[in-house]
């Protein structure tokens, strides 16, 4: 149980900068998710917290103590690895026991702790097995048990679910979150899966090319993206981004005209989430396009429309059925529109449309 701070942390590998000037403050008991595409520096950041990488610059502080010079084994940090990293020659019992043994926990307490940890992840019946005799999900749970058994100050999880199938992944997600709430241990979780990030996190840190693009709660990240990268990364399907021209309170792009706040002008990019679009009648439409694809998923129907040069995703009613080439008119939820600077990708923070009108 500890607060973690990264102060101006930089990690360079020769000429390549893995993490650039990172400032991050992780509250005690917080569940923080580092999210980004592969190679964005999220795993490196986590490994610096673990002590497996030494920062080139800056300070890593855990529980008020600068730990740059502290070896991984002396930081009270437990890590769950993408490939589970169970010791193949040891039984599950011995695997879970290993951290206790290394830290000189008295023998008398070991057995109780091991069984408790195994119960937490429902692995009590498999303690005698070797890792090779377990399924992927069981191995994942064994790795979790090994991490929780000694009640560390900090949990680090490096894409722990990425080798599991989709169904198992969602049930493990629930288990991990439950476990974290129960144990109240500060947790840093690395993933490239936005669903994992949204469902697990207290706060999400979105990273790209070694830099933080946005930090916020899942709601903030989703509804209030800081730039086009975040907007395009979060959401499935992601936010529609349309480049156009804003003048005199009107944003226009091929096939699309919408009223916009007066403060927005010049070359800007409009961002609209698919679920903030509605199929409307003539006269109300902000956008007209021809149906390019129809994807019914059961609970909803995704329409892909072609407008001018771009494709536009719309989330329509579950029974919406169109033929390819049909003309569809779309209206937007005006409160939900985001504008970005086309040059820099940064969000344009202006008075919302409503108050201007």
């Amino acid at each position, binding site marked *: 149980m500890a607060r973690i701070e990264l102060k101006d942390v930089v990690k360079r590998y020769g000429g390549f900068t893995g993490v650039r000037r990172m400032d991050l403050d992780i509250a005690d008991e917080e569940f923080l998710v580092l999210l980004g595409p592969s190679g964005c520096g999220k795993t490196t950041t986590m490994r610096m917290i673990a002590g497996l990488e030494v920062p080139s610059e800056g300070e890593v502080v855990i529980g008020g103590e600068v730990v740059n010079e502290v070896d991984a084994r002396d*930081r009270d940090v437990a890590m769950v*690895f993408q490939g589970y990293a169970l*010791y193949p020659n040891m039984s599950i019992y011995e695997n879970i026991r290993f951290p206790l043994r290394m830290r000189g926990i008295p023998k008398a307490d070991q057995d109780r702790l091991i069984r408790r940890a195994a119960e937490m992840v429902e692995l009590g019946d498999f303690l005698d097995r070797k890792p090779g005799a377990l399924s992927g999900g069981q191995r994942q749970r064994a790795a979790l048990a090994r991490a929780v058994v000694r009640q560390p100050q900090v949990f680090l999880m490096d894409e722990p679910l990425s080798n599991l199938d989709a169904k198992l992944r969602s049930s493990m997600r629930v288990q991990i979150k439950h476990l974290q709430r129960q144990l109240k241990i500060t947790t840093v979780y690395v993933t490239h899966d936005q669903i994992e990030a949204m469902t697990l996190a207290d706060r999400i840190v979105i990273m790209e090319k070694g830099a933080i693009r946005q930090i916020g709660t899942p709601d903030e990240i989703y509804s209030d993206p800081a730039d086009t990268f975040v907007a395009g990364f979060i959401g499935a399907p992601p936010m529609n981004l349309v480049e156009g021209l804003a003048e005199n309170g009107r944003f226009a792009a091929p096939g699309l005209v919408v009223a916009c706040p007066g403060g927005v002008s010049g070359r800007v990019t409009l961002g609209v989430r698919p679920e903030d679009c509605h199929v409307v009648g003539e006269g109300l439409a902000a956008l007209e396009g021809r149906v390019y694809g129809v994807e019914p998923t059961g609970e909803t129907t995704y329409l892909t429309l072609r407008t001018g040069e771009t494709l536009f995703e719309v989330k329509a009613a579950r029974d919406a059925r169109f033929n390819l080439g049909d003309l569809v008119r779309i209206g937007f939820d005006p409160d939900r529109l985001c504008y970005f600077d086309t040059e820099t990708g940064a969000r344009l923070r202006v008075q919302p449309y409503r108050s201007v009108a």
Partner: protein
Amino acid sequence: MAKRRKSKGDNLVLRYLVLGSWALFCLVPIVWFLSIGFRPRTEIITPTPIYWPTFSLDAWRLLLADWPIFDYLRNSVLAVTGSVVIDLILGIPAAYSLTRYEYRGRDDIGFYILSTRMMAPAIVAIPIFFLFRNLGLLDSVFALMLIYAAVNLSIVVWIIRSYMLDIPKELEDAARTDGAGDLRILWEIIIPACLPGIITASVIAAIFAINEFLFTLLIASTKNAYTMSVALANFTGGSDGVIYNAIALVSFLAFLPILVLIVLIQKHLSRGLTMGAVKG
């Protein structure tokens, strides 16, 4: 159902036929050696082959009566075992260092170790003779251990290293965050995970060592240090001519310890102990 079972049975017959033929092919030289070893000298060199020779223990009698064959065997086993132990003590940490630590010249050191194998041993024969003479170690099994160990160290290091490279780094990272230090990681994680490699390297080093001839001939001068491989040479010279049946028997005896060793550790010789460590 019945049909399927039948075809499976056919496959089994075919499989055993193939395996059996291969086993026969591999075993024939051994059987042939034994058959030479157990026939009288007069039945060895004949223009027409004798497939069912007269059984004779002549060679055994010769070996047991005139030659200290068990001393040779003991020397071989001691020198080989000792050299393998030395190789492992030096080779495992060396391989680990070459695999995991990053330091300047690491790859050069690795290549240097390998390159010692490229040198023709005869080049250093004379210096080695003087070296061991000055150390007072001529004609001793201990000297043989050292020499065999030195000759085979490069191979042991490289075989073990290749196995260690396959061990996922995650395992070590996990052990480190779990609180283990370098030596403990090596002892509890790395060595068990590359046990098949260590065993393979040991067997190969043992085979090379038991066959070593040049340096043994140089160092050994009496039964104090004569090994099976040098003893063999004793049967080719001398007033009795080449004693083929004794040679065949000694060869068989020299080969026996390795055979036993390989049968004992057969299951470790295959890779697969790291299965289940990562993903799956």
